[in-house]
């Protein structure tokens, strides 16, 4: 469990992964965008607006993946006191919030021409908006305490309480009448997307995922450096005092 709890060991591993994740992300974005914009068909009903899907859906998947991983990290932090878990959650939160915002905005840009509205308060859209506020709430909460131990503990509890929202987002389109259509990819009976549209979608999703890995490593390194700075400052203050 604690093999990677040692920040030095983590940093060494992260230094190896970072350039590969970054390189892979750039390659996947080039291939994904090429397919999404130039080399995929328009939809038989929605025409070229279907291309918004290649941004909207990966952003939506990543918003849920990021939150889920943060909730798992919170559980590891509370139960096993894994020291890197809280660092991960703090580092991932702004990225997750960004993905959620992107999902909401591109959804709006897709909804206006197709549905005829920018926004409705149906179960899917509302629960994703709640996810966005959970990210913002977590970031505000962990920065509201002077004591980092209490800050992280409060943050972890908020993450776990908010985790009930994730299955609600996923199944909202099945459980209730919503304007948003049901799932097309992760569903019983296989995807209902034509392969020519599924490929750009999957490539873009992988591009988003590798982007996340690279940026979360950068942010974790910053969080670790920040913690070191606090310790040094405290040590200096006590040495002088």
């Amino acid at each position, binding site marked *: 469990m604690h093999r990677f709890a040692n*920040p030095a060991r983590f940093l060494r591993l992260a230094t190896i992964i970072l350039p590969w994740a970054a390189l892979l992300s750039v390659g996947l974005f080039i291939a994904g965008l090429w397919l999404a914009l130039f080399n995929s068909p328009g939809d038989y009903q929605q025409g070229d607006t279907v291309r*918004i899907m290649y*941004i909207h859906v990966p952003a939506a998947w990543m918003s849920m993946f990021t939150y889920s991983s943060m909730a798992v990290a919170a559980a590891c932090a509370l139960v096993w006191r894994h020291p*890197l878990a809280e660092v991960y959650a703090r580092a991932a939160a702004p990225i997750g919030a960004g993905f959620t*915002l992107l999902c909401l905005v591109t959804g709006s840009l897709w909804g206006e021409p197709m549905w005829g509205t920018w926004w409705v308060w149906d179960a899917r859209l509302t629960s994703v908006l709640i996810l966005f506020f959970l990210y913002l709430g977590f970031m505000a909460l962990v920065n509201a305490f002077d*004591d980092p*131990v209490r800050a992280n503990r409060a943050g972890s509890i908020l993450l776990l309480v908010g985790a009930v929202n994730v299955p609600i987002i996923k199944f909202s389109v099945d459980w209730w009448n919503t304007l948003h259509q049901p799932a097309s990819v992760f569903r019983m009976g296989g995807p209902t997307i034509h392969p020519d549209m599924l490929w750009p979608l999957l490539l873009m999703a992988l591009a988003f995922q590798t982007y996340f890995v690279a940026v979360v490593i950068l*942010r974790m390194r910053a969080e670790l450096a920040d913690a070191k700075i606090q310790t*040094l400052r405290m040590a*200096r203050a006590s040495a002088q005092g």
Partner: protein
Amino acid sequence: MSQTMKEFLAMGGYAPYVWSSYGLALLLLLVLLVASVAGLRSRERTLAALEAANPRRRRRKADAAGGDGGEGAAMLPMTGGRGKGGQNDATDADAGGGE
């Protein structure tokens, strides 16, 4: 501009919606990346300055720069829990103690 290029940019009449989606995605991903890199750089600078100003830490700074993490655990500044000593319950001590 060629006809096919015009057609491509028009996105079947949905150009404002499609292109603003892609533009916003690009903007957001770039801003997040640049902010993360800048945040890391500025903290590394602060850390280097602090360590240079604190002679007792010099040896460890050299270790960190050399990429050898052997001493890293001793520096573990995680969550401030250790720095504050005794604020956590006993089990916290084993979090990094296995090394």
